[in-house]
C-alpha cells in the first residue's frame, strides 16, 4: 500500500470501528509475527540441519503433499461428478456418506490403520527371499509412502468433493445441457466443460487438503516419514533449538505461500468466466445398469477406507476396552471439548464478522489489509502457532509479572482463534460481498448508524453464512490436537488430547473411545452442513 493511501485512510476512515478492527486483526496476527521475528535470530544447529536433514524433509514433504493432493483430487472430483450430475441407485446415501470421513482427524485415521503396513509383510519377505534385500527395502519404502498417502487422502478428499460438487451443481443446468444438445458425449462434457469450470473449486479444496497434510504430525510420525512438521518438533524438542525449528517452520510457510499463490492464480483466472446463473435442478445423466454398479463400487471405496473401516475397528477396540471409560472420565472430556469448541466457534465468528464488516462498511483498505494478516494462521501448523504463543506469553510475563498467560483457558482460546480465524473469515467475507454490498452503500449514504446496519441488515442477510462459519470452526476445533496439547491448562483434557495421550503411551486400543466420541460429535454438524449446502444449491 502506498504511503498516500495510508494517510488518506488514517485521516478519513479511522473511526472506533476500523480502529478496533485493525487492533484485533493485529492481535490475532501477533503469535505468527513472533515466529517471523525469530527468523533473524541465529540458530546454532542450522548449518547442521541444512547439511544433513533439510533435503530429506523437503523431499518427503513434497512427495507426501503431491501424492495426497493427487489422490484426494482423483477421489474428490470423481465422487463430486457422479453425485452432482448422474443418477444411480444409492446416490442419496453416498451424497452424505462421502462427507463423513471429514469427521476423522488424520491422527485418528493413522491410529485406526496403525498396523496397515503389516499387510505388506508377506510380500516383503517373499521379495527378500526370492530377489534380494535391497529390492525389499525399496519396496518397503514405496509401501510406507503409499499407505501414508492412502490414509491421509481417505479422510481429506471430502474437502475437494464438497467444493467440486457445489461447483458442478451450479454449472449443471445451462452448460451441461448445452453441451449435450450440441452433441457432445458425457466424457467430453466432463473434460472440456465441467472440469475446467470447476477448477477454482477444486483448487480451493486442494489447498485445504495440502494445508491439512502439511499440518499433520500424528500420521507421519506413526508411519516414520520425516517431514518439515516432524522436523520442527525434532529440532525444537530433540535438539532444544527453537530458532532452528522456527527456521524450518519459516521454510514450511514459504512452501505454503508458494502453493497458495499458485492456487490463487489458478482461481482468479477461472473466476473470470464463472457463471452464477440459475440454480434450478437440472436433468441428471441416468447411468446404465453396468455403469451404476461400477459407480457404486468406486464410491464405496473412499467411504469404506475413510470412514467405515476406521469406525468399525475403533468400535471393536472400544468394545474390548470398556473398562477404560472409568479411568478417563469421558463425560468431562466431552464437556471440555464441547465447551472449548463452542466458545472458540462463537468468538471467532463474532470477531470475523466485526472485522469483515468494519473493512467493508467503511471501505477501509487498511482494515482489509490487516484482515489479510489475521487469516494467515490457518496455513500455519498448530505447533508453530503454539510456539509463537509461548514466546509471546514469555515476553508478556516478563513485563507484567503478575499475569500468567500460558496454561489459562483464555490463551488456549486465543490460540484457536489465531489458528482458525480464516475458516470463519472466508465465508463471511464472500457472503457479505455478495449479499450486503449494495444495501450497505445505500445505508451509509443515508447516514444510518453502522451498528444499526450491522444488526438489522447485515446479520439477518448472512444468517446462514454465519451459522455455516460457526459450524466449520466448531468442527476444526473439535479435531484440533497440537495447540491443545501444548497450551492446555491444569487438569484440562479434551477428547483429542486423551486420544493422543492414550495412543502415545502405546494404548491405541484404549484410545479408541475418545476418538470415537470426536467422530460422532463432528459427524452431526457435518451432516447438517451437507443438508444446508444442498438446500442452497438445489
Amino acid at each position, binding site marked *: 500500500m502506498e504511503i498516500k493511501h495510508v494517510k488518506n485512510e488514517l485521516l478519513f476512515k479511522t473511526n472506533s470501528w476500523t480502529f478496533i478492527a485493525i487492533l484485533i486483526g493485529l492481535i490475532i496476527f501477533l503469535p505468527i509475527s513472533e515466529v517471523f521475528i525469530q527468523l533473524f535470530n541465529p540458530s546454532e*544447529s542450522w548449518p*547442521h*540441519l541444512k547439511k*544433513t536433514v533439510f533435503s*530429506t524433509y523437503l523431499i518427503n514433504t513434497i512427495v507426501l503433499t503431491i501424492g495426497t493432493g493427487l489422490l484426494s483430487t482423483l477421489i474428490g472430483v470423481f465422487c463430486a461428478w457422479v453425485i452432482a450430475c448422474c443418477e444411480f441407485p444409492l446416490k442419496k446415501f453416498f451424497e452424505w456418506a462421502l462427507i463423513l470421513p471429514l469427521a476423522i482427524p488424520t491422527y485418528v485415521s493413522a491410529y485406526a490403520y496403525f*498396523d496397515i*503396513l503389516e499387510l505388506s*509383510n508377506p510380500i*516383503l*519377505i517373499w521379495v*527378500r527371499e526370492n530377489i534380494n*534385500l535391497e529390492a525389499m*527395502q525399496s519396496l*518397503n519404502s514405496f509401501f*510406507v509412502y503409499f499407505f501414508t498417502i492412502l490414509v491421509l487422502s481417505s479422510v481429506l478428499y471430502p474437502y475437494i468433493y464438497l467444493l467440486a460438487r457445489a461447483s458442478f451443481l451450479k454449472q449443471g443446468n445451462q452448460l451441461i445441457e448445452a453441451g449435450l444438445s450440441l452433441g457432445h458425449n458425457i466424457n467430453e462434457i466432463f473434460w472440456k466443460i465441467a472440469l475446467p469450470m470447476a477448477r477454482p473449486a477444486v483448487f480451493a479444496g486442494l489447498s485445504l487438503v495440502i494445508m491439512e497434510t502439511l499440518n499433520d504430525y500424528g500420521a507421519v*510420525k506413526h*508411519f*516414520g*516419514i*520425516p517431514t518439515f512438521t*516432524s522436523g520442527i*518438533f525434532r529440532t*525444537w*524438542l*530433540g*535438539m*532444544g533449538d527453537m530458532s532452528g525449528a522456527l527456521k524450518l517452520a519459516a521454510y514450511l510457510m514459504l512452501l505454503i505461500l508458494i502453493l497458495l499463490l499458485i492456487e490463487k492464480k489458478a482461481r482468479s483466472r477461472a473466476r473470470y468466466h464463472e457463471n452464477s446463473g440459475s440454480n434450478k435442478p437440472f436433468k441428471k445423466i441416468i447411468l446404465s445398469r453396468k455403469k451404476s454398479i461400477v459407480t457404486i463400487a468406486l464410491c464405496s471405496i473412499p467411504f469404506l477406507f475413510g470412514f467405515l473401516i476406521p469406525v468399525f475397528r475403533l468400535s471393536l477396540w472400544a468394545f*474390548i*476396552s470398556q473398562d477404560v471409560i472409568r*479411568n478417563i472420565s469421558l463425560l468431562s472430556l466431552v*464437556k471440555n471439548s464441547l*465447551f472449548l469448541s463452542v466458545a472458540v466457534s462463537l468468538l471467532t465468528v463474532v470477531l470475523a464478522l466485526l472485522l469483515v464488516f468494519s473493512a467493508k462498511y467503511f471501505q477501509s483498505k487498511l482494515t482489509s489489509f490487516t484482515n489479510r494478516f489475521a487469516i494467515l494462521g490457518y496455513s500455519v501448523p498448530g505447533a508453530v502457532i503454539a*510456539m509463537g504463543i*509461548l514466546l509471546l*506469553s*514469555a515476553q508478556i*510475563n516478563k513485563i507484567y*509479572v*503478575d*499475569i*500468567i498467560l*500460558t*496454561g*489459562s*483457558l*483464555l490463551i488456549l482460546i486465543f490460540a484457536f482463534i489465531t489458528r482458525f480465524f480464516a475458516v470463519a473469515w472466508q465465508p463471511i467475507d464472500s457472503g457479505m460481498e455478495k449479499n450486503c454490498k449494495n444495501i450497505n452503500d445505500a445505508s451509509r449514504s443515508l447516514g444510518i448508524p453502522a451498528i444499526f446496519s450491522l444488526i438489522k441488515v447485515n446479520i439477518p442477510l448472512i444468517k446462514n453464512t454465519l451459522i455455516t462459519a460457526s459450524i466449520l470452526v466448531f468442527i476444526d476445533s473439535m479435531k484440533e490436537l497440537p495447540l491443545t*496439547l*501444548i*497450551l*492446555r*491448562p*491444569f*487438569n484440562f483434557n479434551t477428547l483429542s488430547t486423551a486420544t493422543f*495421550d*492414550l495412543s*502415545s*503411551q*502405546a*494404548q491405541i*486400543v484404549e484410545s479408541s473411545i475418545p476418538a470415537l466420541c470426536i467422530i460422532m460429535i463432528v459427524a452431526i454438524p457435518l451432516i447438517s452442513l451437507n443438508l444446508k449446502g444442498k438446500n442452497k444449491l438445489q
Partner: protein
Amino acid sequence: MIKNLKKNHFLLASLLVLIASAPISAQINLYTHRHYDSDKILFEKFTKETGIKINVIKGSADQLIQRMISEGKNSPADILLTVDAGRLHRAKEAGVLQSINSKTINKNVPSEMRDPDGFWYGLTVRARVIVYAKDRINSNELSTYEDLATAKWKGKIAIRSSGNIYNQSLMASLIEANGSRRALRWAIGVRKNMARAPRGNDRDQVRAVAAGLADIAVVNTYYLGILANSKEKKDRDVFNKVSVFFPNQNNRGTHINISGAGIAKYSKNKSDAIKFIEFLTSPEAQETFGKVNYEYPLFIENNKSDLLKSWGTFKADKQNLSILGIRNSEAVKLFDRADWK
C-alpha cells in the same frame, strides 16, 4: 433445573480455571509426561495418606519444559515428571528445576540414578534390551550393542527412528563409552543392517520380528510388558514368539534409563513436593510401579513383577544417567549424519 445447575457449575469451574493460579493449601501441581494407571493409583494413595491433592498436566516432557520456561517465575508447577533422564537434564540446564537434599530420597535412589547436584531423581527403571526371534536366532549369537553394527546382522535388525528419545539416550551412552567417532560408525553400521527404514514404536519393532521381517529388535522392557499383557490376542502371540537378551553383560552392562522427577524452581509447595517424591521412591510405591506398569524398581534386584522376573536378572550400566542429557544433542546430530531416519 438440574441441567441448569450443572451448566452453572461448569461455567463456574471454567471461570475458576481462568482466575486460579493462587496457591491453595495442601495441593501440588504436577507437570508429567507419564500417563499410566500405576501413577494414578499412586497419586490417589498419596492424597489419601497425606491429604495433599495432586493437580496434573500431561504433555510431552519437552513441551512441558518449554512451558515452564515461558511461565517463568509465575509457573504454577511444583514437580516435573518425565520418562527419560535426558529430558530431566535438559530441564536442569534450562533452569526450571531446583536442587533439593532429602535423606530419605538419597537413601531410596541409587546415586547413578539421580542428578549429582540434586536437581532430579529417578523413580523407575527401564532397560533397553535386544529381543530375538526364538525360532531363528540362538541367544549365543548375541553379545553387545556394538556387535549390532557388524556385517553379520545385515538386513536383520528392527529399530525405531532416531527421533525417539530412548534411541538418543542409547546413543549418548555409546558416545560416552566409546567416543563420538566410534559411535558414529556404530550408527552407520546399524543403519546399514536395518531390515527396513525405521518406523513405529518399540512394539512395532517386536511385531516386525514376530512377522519374520527382522530377526532381532532393540526395545524397552516396558513395551514388552504391554505386549505380554495386551487385550488383543495378536499382541500376546507376538510376545510369545520372541525372547529377551540383556546385552553387554560381560562389560559395562545393559543400557538403562529412568523415569524421574525434579522440583520446579519456582515451586510454591516445595515441602509437599519433596514429600511426594519421597513417597514415590518408597519401597511400597516402587512395588506398584513394577506390578502395574512393568517397570523395574530403582533397586533392580528388588523387582517383584513376575513377568520381569521371568527374563532373569541382569547387570545394568552404572554410568550416571545425567550423561544421557549431556550427550543428547550430540547424539541427535550423529544420527542425522549417519542418515538414521
